[in-house]
């Protein structure tokens, strides 16, 4: 029995070998070209609770790879290389993200890495890229604690959290000097709570009185109580953080309870078209900030050329408007491509040096990294929903309108 099995298998192998050989002769041209590939490793939480985020990231990376390959590939010296992205699912489990990064380097022999999702997993995986000296671009890590480890091979394209609250606090202070009191209602969750706390700091720094600061639970179905309390304090600025479903409901209940304030800021829901669709007229004059928005207008030297072109290409491929999650992944690809082309080499150390000294503009915005590897050139846009459209009110370079008073 065993013997028979062995023979069958042996024949199977020889068959496969013959087929491969035949194919090889037939396709000898492309087969040689198949070596001219740059492999990028991307550990992503393709399954598990973070799956929706991984899908966004994948859409961004795939669009970039497709665009580069259509344009002939990445130019290194006189040669052109096609892009290949190797995805590994780490099941929304951070320790597995570290293993996945290591596997991508040692087994899949990728040339460069894209970081896993979020600050926590990125920090964990950065020890691996540092050990193997493989440059890694972090698309979605904002916490400064990721970048203060003295690592040389990690580069991130999200600015620290406070860059989302500082500019808007400045604008409100300048344009609406009568605004003196702030109420903050934050979702009790890693990123939304961090933004709420940054807002508290930004407000206090400007002598604004924080009259209310509360957290609400994940899965909250009713905001009437905290909103009633906010109403009794009559703040002039209401600052709320959470995800789309939370903030759609909260905005509706604010109207129900007839709560009005000169400024209403919500992070991050208004960055998504769904928020505008679901709240209708109630979205009018809500302000928000995110690291990137499809309404920004940058002309870049990257493969997409400009924000408009990127948005158009994205719409053509996915029939949807990209948000900053999708944009950050495509931007990571575009940025490392520029570094490779500038280095004129696939040598990881040379590409790392090119990233460290990079000073370019892309569809994502201007790109320069600080000593710690975190981007310091980007000014996350502040925008306001005006006539059902997001209008950029900061930074000045790409400004489309002025802050309007709510009511």
């Amino acid at each position: 029995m065993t013997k028979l099995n062995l023979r069958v298998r042996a024949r199977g192998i020889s068959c496969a070998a013959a087929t491969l050989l035949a194919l090889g002769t037939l396709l000898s041209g492309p087969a040689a070209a198949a070596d001219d590939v740059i492999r990028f490793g991307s550990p992503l939480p393709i399954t598990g609770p973070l799956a929706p985020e991984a899908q966004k990231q994948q859409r961004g990376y795939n669009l970039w790879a497709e665009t580069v390959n259509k344009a002939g590939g990445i130019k290194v010296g006189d040669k052109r290389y096609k892009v290949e992205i190797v995805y590994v699912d780490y099941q929304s489990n951070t320790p597995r993200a570290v293993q996945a990064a290591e596997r991508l380097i040692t087994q899949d022999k990728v040339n460069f890495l894209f970081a896993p999702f979020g600050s926590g997993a990125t920090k964990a995986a950065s020890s691996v890229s540092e050990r193997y000296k493989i440059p890694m671009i972090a698309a979605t890590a904002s916490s400064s604690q990721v970048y203060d480890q003295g690592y040389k091979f990690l580069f991130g394209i999200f600015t620290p959290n406070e860059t989302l609250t500082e500019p808007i606090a400045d604008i409100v202070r300048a344009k609406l000097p009568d605004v003196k009191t702030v109420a903050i209602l934050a979702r009790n969750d890693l990123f939304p709570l961090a933004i709420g706390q940054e807002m508290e700091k930004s407000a206090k720094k400007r002598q604004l009185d924080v009259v209310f600061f509360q957290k609400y639970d994940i899965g909250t179905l009713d905001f009437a109580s905290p909103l009633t309390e906010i109403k009794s304090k009559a703040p002039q600025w209401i600052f709320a953080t959470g995800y789309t479903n939370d903030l759609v409901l909260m905005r509706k209940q604010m109207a129900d309870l007839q709560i009005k304030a000169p400024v209403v800021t919500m992070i991050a829901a208004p960055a998504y078209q769904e928020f505008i669709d679901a709240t209708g007229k109630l979205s009018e004059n809500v302000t928000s900030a995110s690291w990137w928005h499809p309404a920004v207008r940058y002309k870049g030297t990257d493969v997409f050329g400009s924000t408009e072109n990127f948005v158009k290409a994205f719409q053509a491929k996915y029939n949807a408007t990209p948000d900053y999650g999708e944009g950050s992944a495509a931007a990571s690809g575009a940025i490392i491509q520029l570094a490779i082309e500038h280095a004129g080499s696939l040598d990881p150390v040379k590409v790392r040096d090119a990233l460290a000294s990079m000073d370019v503009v892309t569809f994502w915005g201007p790109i320069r990294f600080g000593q710690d590897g975190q981007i310091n050139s980007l000014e996350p846009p502040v925008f306001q929903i005006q006539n059902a459209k997001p209008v950029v009110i900061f930074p000045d370079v790409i400004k489309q309108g002025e802050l309007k008073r709510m009511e």
Partner: protein
Amino acid sequence: MLYLQVILNGLVLGGIYACIAVGFSLVWGVLNVINIMHGSLIVLGSYVAYMAHAAFGISPFVSILFIAPAFFLLGYVIELVLINRIVTAPVLLTLTLTFGLDLILINGMLVGFSADFKRLTLDPPLGTLSFGGLALPVDRVVAMGLAILLTGLLYLILSRSRIGRAISAVRMDREAAMLMGVNVNHVNSVTFGLGTMMAGVAGALLAMIFPIYPLLGYTYLGKAFVICVLGGLGSIPGALLGGIVLGEVESFGAIWFGPEHAVTLSFALLILVLLFRPEGLLGRKGFA
């Protein structure tokens, strides 16, 4: 003034919670089936109302007129074809079956409606009643009123009509009802149909209040669990009372302890009720 508004908030929230729980409680009480699918059936009702409004401009107050019979039929058929086969089996089996059906329903909705958030926005909006600094959102009040009306109607059906008395009989003692000539299978299907109908109608009303997305069902289900245990299994007035108690506890909890503890507080209450009054506030075996 603040507390008066908080009491009002709790009351309308409670009415909405009652709406979520009535059908769930009925099915659990009579069939002894914990219908995991209940939350997702509510979401399905919301989607139907949303589509009817978006495509044909039909107000949810009108669409409940066809959602109610359609969902009754849906529930009747699901019970007849699937649940009836295991209705006397251990509770784990019925849990597994409805959990499986729930997964199918959720994934069907994910494919059919995508994971985006939708909301049914009436134009013009119903607005807010205000008097003396107090605010009462009309859509919530109307949803609550209709929920109470339907619950009352259901209560009347169960206590006055022939089929209602049969349902109560089955709830009290399945074997005895069978011996008395009650067609238990039919009663089961009707009960499940009524439960599904309540879910569909609740969904249509809630579409005006909550953003709709396929995974919302779990949040509803969690509330339904707490309310049923609070109010007493299978008791219709119990579901109403349980809903209002939960609404008030969450509202005051959020004011006194901060909104992040509102849910913790409601589950603490659940544990207390289970310890000291396990049959629920209005639970008495054998009465609808």
